[in-house]
């Protein structure tokens, strides 16, 4: 049990790394052939190609390492959960065999990427890379949920693979755009290619978007099926959140495309050089959010499979309705008295004290964030009487201390379960510990950032960690709850996670656009970021947990 929580987390971590590595590999291959035209006579400069190959090599190495380790870790998780590891049975699973195939393919990519690092224009190596890409993409079909379904298995596997491919191309090429922009600082060829690459990527991006919409609609139709399934299940709510972020990403893609169009029409490079690189960075945050939600979807049962455990729309609406915040908490003794019945498998008794304890935690944490949000927005107003509002990040440190004592009543320091045992033996407690640490680090770093504008590196801690915090919210696991109760809780946390990703990308954009050309957009992005934080606070102030 002690190791199982840690092993599960590592297993999950590697699964995520596999997805991003896959996107970097596939996106890099498409980028190299379509944008850099490595196989044509008018190919890009060696510097541009080398930058691309570096991303390919990084992605392939990470893919090989993550797939190989995941196969081992999955075996450890199985052994820990089952009490033994039936090796023959494990090796016989489709997952194991498809994983081994993907591991070998990734090693092949590493070999040829290394050759390309020495000779970036070697056609034979590019041929090999192209040949490896086909089985890499196809092997994904045996690693998705559709492989286990009984109806329409083939078409669902095919559609999911195309959906993944389109997402990988978009994300991988956006990562490549960032690398090209950086390469342009040293390589004239890369610098000259920058506007051309933006315009060439436009049609590839549009194709990806069309494929994503088409395949996404088909998958949603098959896995969700009804409006109740869309609004009343975890799967459906994640799809809704994913689509909101998708629209934001499309907004950034439109701005990039418009700048490229301006360059084609009148040769204007101002927006392309002074704004687009930062739009692309913010777009990356959003795409990461989208991909992350897509990965989270794989841990949810499709809506069509749980019609009897689907919440009514009125129940979902009720979760978001204003309530008087709970500012008094049950005592620790009252809470612990109800815990044995609440966690029992047989003769389970819902605990009112646990419900009120959780309401109090969320509502007070919400008050922290709401006050911080108001002060943070006020700090953008140029008024000497409001200068003190720049100290708003102190609230994060207070929130961290509050969370440390209140998140998990049954664990140290208030409960009987020890710190290490609870942290590494329970995935949910582990997430809470991380969130507590993240809040403290954000508070200290952001305070330094707001007080010392010259400390540039520290300023980027908030967007990175708030994005991480957003992801924790989006994956907040309440494994012991019934699916319907779990969903009602998840619906609010998913919305908060969405706002946290917007907060992160807004702040990032603000920091990156502190230029004469981008000042106004940067200020707007900064205020949007703080409004997102305020909304998270308001949601938490009104939070009410179902009785479970």
């Amino acid at each position: 049990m002690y190791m199982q929580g840690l092993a599960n987390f590592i297993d999950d971590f590697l699964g995520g790394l596999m997805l991003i590595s896959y996107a970097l590999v596939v996106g890099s291959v498409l980028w190299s052939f379509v944008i850099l035209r490595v196989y044509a006579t008018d190919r890009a400069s060696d510097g541009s190609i080398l930058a691309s190959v570096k991303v390919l090599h990084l992605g392939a190495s990470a893919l090989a390492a993550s797939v190989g380790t995941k196969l081992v870790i999955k075996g450890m998780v199985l052994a820990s959960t089952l009490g033994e590891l039936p090796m023959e049975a494990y090796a016989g699973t489709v997952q194991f065999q498809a994983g081994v195939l993907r591991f070998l393919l990734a090693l092949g990519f590493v070999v040829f990427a290394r050759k390309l690092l020495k000779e970036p224009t070697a056609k034979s190596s590019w041929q090999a890379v192209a040949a490896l890409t086909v089985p890499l993409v196809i092997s994904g079909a045996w690693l998705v949920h559709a492989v286990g379904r009984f109806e329409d298995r083939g078409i669902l596997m095919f559609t999911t693979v195309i959906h993944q491919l389109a997402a990988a191309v978009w994300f991988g090429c956006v990562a490549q755009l960032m690398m090209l922009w950086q390469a342009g600082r040293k390589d004239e060829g890369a610098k000259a290619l920058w506007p051309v690459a933006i315009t060439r990527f436009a049609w590839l991006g549009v194709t990806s978007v069309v494929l994503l919409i088409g395949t996404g609609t088909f998958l949603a139709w098959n896995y969700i099926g009804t409006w109740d399934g869309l609004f009343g299940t975890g799967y459906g709510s994640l799809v809704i959140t994913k689509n909101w972020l998708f629209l934001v990403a499309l907004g950034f893609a439109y701005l990039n495309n418009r700048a490229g169009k301006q360059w084609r029409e009148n040769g204007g490079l101002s927006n392309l050089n002074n704004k687009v690189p930062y739009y692309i960075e913010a777009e990356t945050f959003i795409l990461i959010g989208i991909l992350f939600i897509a990965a989270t979807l794989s841990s949810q049962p499709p809506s069509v499979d749980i019609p009897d455990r689907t919440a009514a729309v009125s129940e979902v609406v009720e979760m978001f309705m204003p309530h008087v915040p709970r500012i008094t908490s049950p005592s620790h003794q009252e809470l612990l008295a109800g815990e044995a019945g609440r966690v029992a498998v047989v003769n389970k008794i819902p605990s009112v004290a646990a419900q009120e304890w959780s309401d109090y935690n969320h509502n007070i944490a919400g008050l922290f964030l709401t006050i911080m949000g108001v002060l943070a927005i006020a700090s953008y107003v140029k008024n000497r009487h409001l200068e003190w509002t720049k100290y708003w990040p102190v609230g994060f440190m207070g929130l961290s201390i509050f969370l440390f004592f209140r998140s998990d009543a049954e664990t140290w320091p208030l409960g009987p379960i020890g710190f290490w045992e609870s942290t590494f033996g329970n995935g949910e407690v582990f997430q809470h510990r991380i969130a507590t640490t993240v809040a403290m680090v954000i508070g200290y770093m952001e305070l330094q950032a707001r007080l010392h504008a010259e400390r540039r590196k520290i300023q980027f801690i908030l967007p990175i960690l708030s994005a991480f915090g957003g992801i924790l919210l989006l994956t907040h696991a309440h494994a012991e709850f019934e699916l319907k109760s779990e969903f009602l809780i998840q619906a609010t946390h998913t919305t908060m996670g969405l706002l946290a990703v917007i907060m992160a990308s807004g702040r990032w954009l603000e920091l990156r656009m502190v230029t004469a050309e981008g000042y106004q957009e940067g200020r707007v992005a900064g205020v949007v970021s703080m409004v997102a934080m305020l909304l998270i606070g308001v949601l938490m102030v009104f939070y009410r947990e179902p009785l479970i």
Partner: protein
Amino acid sequence: MKYPVALLFAAGLLFAASQQASAHAVVTESSLKTHPIEINHPTEVALHFNSGVELALSRVFLVSKGDVYHPLEIAKGKKPGQMLIKVPALEEGDYAIKYKVFAADGHLTEDVIRFKVSASK
């Protein structure tokens, strides 16, 4: 170079957190609903999952009062996704079936089905 690397690192963290304990193989039908277990009568319970399940990598337990666990024998059913569970004769009371199943998509799922054994009316 620094910022893209930071972003890619952030991407890794985000994906890392995205892969949670899975709940993909869910029970869509249970014979416990249609054929409740009778007192002192061994029963074969049939569960239908929404996904293929690897039986050799799955375990099922009977949980009785006080959360005492007893491993149960499982077998493949005739229909796709069907699992047959041999439940011994039980006295009147509250029980649960706790299962840990390895779905064909690679997700390990744990869940509980609670049921009551009582005299027939």
